């Protein structure tokens, strides 16, 4: 595949000409390499932000220099997304000032921020699902070039050129069919890359990424890291928000640690150990040893026999014992996602058999699966899992609504509330008010609500798809403990994830899928990330050669 040498620079030049300035005039400020400029590109001073009664940011100050990488770390709900929204102009701060290239502002608006070169990859990706890939990537560039004015012609050739360059940079295809694909038809991982491509399609000076790697596989992350390197070498600052500390170290740069709306530490990452960072974020100590201590019980609980759903996966067979935790990993297109949804009955397998407790069953629908005692926690918890506007109580009893009904068809709410309250306690939600809408919870708590829902019916098998995507270390800890407890109680669990440490810490066995088949099986205690990673890439000739490069 053709890779333009310096796509980001191509984009730079183009934007300059469009904005009407001759490219030369900008040459003096633009190319900055490792040498840090005298003054920071962006500085926040004493920022406060309140949402109704919530004091989300309490006097945050930090600065961003060109060409540097920053990692904004902190627990769920500590104010990371809020500070990003202030930088990108989505929110106005209540107090404090924003100094952009030496000029002080009380607040920014989106166009101002974009025109200054602040590009954001939002946590929710902020893609327009009904538009094409090309439009999603490159439309904004034209909007910004016209200063947000809409009564302007829109240039299709330029759209195509910009999109091609940006897509190539993040490693997505640039074929016409792909450019014209509708974004909602793409899998989540590709959508995340499209969002990143949009951020770098313009002459960015600062790229902010709010948890950009949540649904990327390791290889795609590697690719992203390469992109970041190149951006930095061109003088672009990068600010990451992430909960994956390992990735931070791989990228390097500075850490900015938030706790409770305040900035509690900042400095070069190398100054902090992982352990120390965790302490700073949570204010307590969490050790990262292996969670799995128990052992599976005897007796087969679940078996897949030659499951196929062309073209996603074929002839997948495995079995699971009571109390066993099985990990399944693979690249985004390895078929692991479809396998998960097939077991859950969302996209039923076309061929093959499923045995539960020795009985052959056909699962054609999620309700089927649930009746058979198979629970499924989807990866996209907002879109597919939670009823955001509804209370914790209603979310927790969603599965047992009809069971709670008495002979007259009246739902026993008192019983339901007791159940929901118990679940909230078991899942250690940090609120006792189960009438709170789930939308008012942080991501980690939302995930706990979603997993907790299954505690209401105690399924025989629980399939967890990306159980800790976008969840902070504190919540992760809780979720892992719950998983282990469930296994202790004899439930079978399948964790589908590309967070390899997560699988290694929690599973008994790990299956690796590749190109629709299970290609390897490991004992979790006897393997390591490297081995798993190699297996994920193996047997695909084109990729091996790449890995070698």
């Amino acid at each position, binding site marked *: 595949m053709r890779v333009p040498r310096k796509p980001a620079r191509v984009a730079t030049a183009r934007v300059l000409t469009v904005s009407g300035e001759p490219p030369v005039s900008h040459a003096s400020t633009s190319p900055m390499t490792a040498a840090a400029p005298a003054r920071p590109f962006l500085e926040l001073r004493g920022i406060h932000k309140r949402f109704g009664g919530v004091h989300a940011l309490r006097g945050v100050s930090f600065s961003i220099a060109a060409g540097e990488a920053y990692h904004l770390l902190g627990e769920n709900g500590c104010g990371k997304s809020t500070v990003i929204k202030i930088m990108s102009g989505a929110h106005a701060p209540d107090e404090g000032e924003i100094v952009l290239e030496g000029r002080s502002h009380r607040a920014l608006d989106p166009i101002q921020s974009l025109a200054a070169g602040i590009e954001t990859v939002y946590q929710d990706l902020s893609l*327009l699902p009904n538009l094409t890939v090309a439009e999603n990537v490159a439309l904004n560039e034209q909007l910004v070039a016209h200063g947000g004015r809409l009564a302007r012609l*829109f240039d299709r050739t330029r759209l195509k050129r910009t999109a091609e360059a940006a897509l190539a940079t993040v490693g997505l295809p640039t074929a016409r069919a792909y450019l014209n694909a509708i974004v909602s038809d793409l899998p989540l991982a590709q959508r995340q890359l499209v969002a990143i491509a949009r951020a770098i399609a313009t002459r960015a000076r600062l790229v902010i990424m709010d948890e950009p790697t949540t649904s990327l596989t390791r290889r795609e992350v590697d690719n992203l890291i390469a992109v970041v390197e190149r951006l930095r070498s061109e003088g672009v600052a990068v600010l990451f928000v992430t909960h994956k500390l390992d990735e931070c170290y791989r990228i390097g740069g500075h850490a900015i640690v938030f706790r409770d709306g305040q900035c509690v530490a900042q400095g070069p990452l190398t100054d902090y150990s992982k352990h120390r960072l965790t302490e700073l974020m949570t204010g307590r100590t969490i050790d990262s040893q292996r969670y799995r201590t128990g052992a599976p019980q005897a007796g087969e609980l679940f078996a897949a026999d030659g499951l196929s759903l062309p073209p996603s996966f074929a002839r997948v067979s495995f079995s699971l014992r009571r109390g066993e935790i099985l990990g399944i990993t693979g690249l985004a297109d390895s078929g692991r996602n479809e396998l998960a949804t097939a077991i859950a009955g969302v996209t039923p397998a076309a061929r093959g058999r499923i045995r539960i407790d020795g009985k052959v069953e056909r699962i054609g629908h999620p309700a089927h699966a649930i009746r058979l005692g198979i629970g499924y926690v989807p990866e996209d918890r907002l879109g597919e899992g939670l009823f955001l506007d509804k209370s914790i109580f209603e979310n927790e009893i969603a599965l047992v609504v009809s069971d709670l009904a008495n002979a007259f068809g009246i739902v026993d709410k008192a019983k339901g509330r007791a159940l929901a309250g118990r679940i909230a306690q078991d899942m250690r939600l940090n609120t006792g008010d189960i009438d709170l809408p789930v939308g008012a919870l942080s991501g980690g708590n939302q995930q706990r609500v979603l997993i907790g829902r299954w505690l209401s019916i105690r399924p025989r098998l629980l399939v967890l798809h990306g159980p800790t995507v976008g969840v902070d270390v504190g919540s992760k800890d809780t979720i892992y403990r719950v998983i282990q407890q469930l296994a202790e109680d004899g439930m079978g669990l399948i964790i589908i994830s590309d967070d390899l440490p997560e699988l290694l810490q929690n599973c008994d066995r790990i299956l690796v899928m590749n190109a629709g088949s299970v290609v390897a099986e490991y004992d979790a205690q006897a393997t390591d990330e490297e081995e798993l990673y190699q297996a994920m890439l193996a047997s695909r000739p084109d990729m091996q050669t790449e890995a070698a490069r």
Partner: protein
Amino acid sequence: MSATHLQDAAPSRRSAFLDLVSRRPEIITFIILLAICVAVSVINPAFLQPSSLVDIGRASVVMGLFALGVFIILAAGGIDVSFTAIAAFTMYSMTLVVKDHVPDMPIALVLVLATAGGALLGVVNGLLVHHLRVPSLIVTIGTQYLFRGILLAFIGTVWIMSLPTQMGAFGRMPLFQFESGDGRTITLPFYFLVLPAAALLTWWILSRTLMGRAIFALGGNASVAERLGYSLKTIHIFLFAYAGALAGLAGIIHAAANRQANPFDLVGSEINVIAAVVLGGARITGGTGTVLGTLLGVLLIVVVNSVLVMVGIPSTWQRVVVGGFILLAAGFFMFCQKKNN
């Protein structure tokens, strides 16, 4: 860092036809339209004459203009039910003004002023939708009652049976005229041209300007569009002003063609127009659809309504047939789309 595997991950394995249909749902509309025409011609060959085409063309103008407005709002994720009230309002007050105050206003100016008047009422809609932050369906139900109430309570209810001469002349001005075999004159009126012109303009705005893309962006996800720097206020105002302008124009044409200005007219037909747009392939949830599809949807409704006598369906049965037909068409539509996924 190749990503060839991503390409084969892209959706494939559907038949080429279904693939086409999913990208361009208006093809289904076209097929249904064609099927009806063939069926009707078989039942009654009298359908196959140029005058049928002319009649259908003429009957589509007002509904077509409305539909373009509805479509552009639907594309942005909204719904408008006030356009008929806007049309009646501008049509009647404009006619009143011309008749009583400026009897020799040139027709071009009448059309421009009516369009501008419609746009103005549209702006009211746009501002309300933007500032009240509620779905436009609700706001426009309110403004429909409001506009119609103002028109009938404060402006007038008296039918204007003899239009100012220039308006009457405009309604009668032929684009072309010919004599059919049995000595009848068949006329395609000049005002017919307004529909293709408006369709072209709408298509151009939607596909060639940033505003057009912004409209679809808004239909895709409003809060995302706002975050990306699209000014929702500008889009809302433009959208409703444009739809209002089309409605104002449609109203004046309706009056000119009808040779009377009846303030009670038009209101009540809005659901049919929305149905036509949805039958043309635009999703009711917004963000999709094409101008061509919209026109096909309008044609579909007009043709179904105008072949009933041709086919010899007694008037007591006509509602059953039209209703059943809408259900069949919608069912077929969904069937094709479902097969895709």
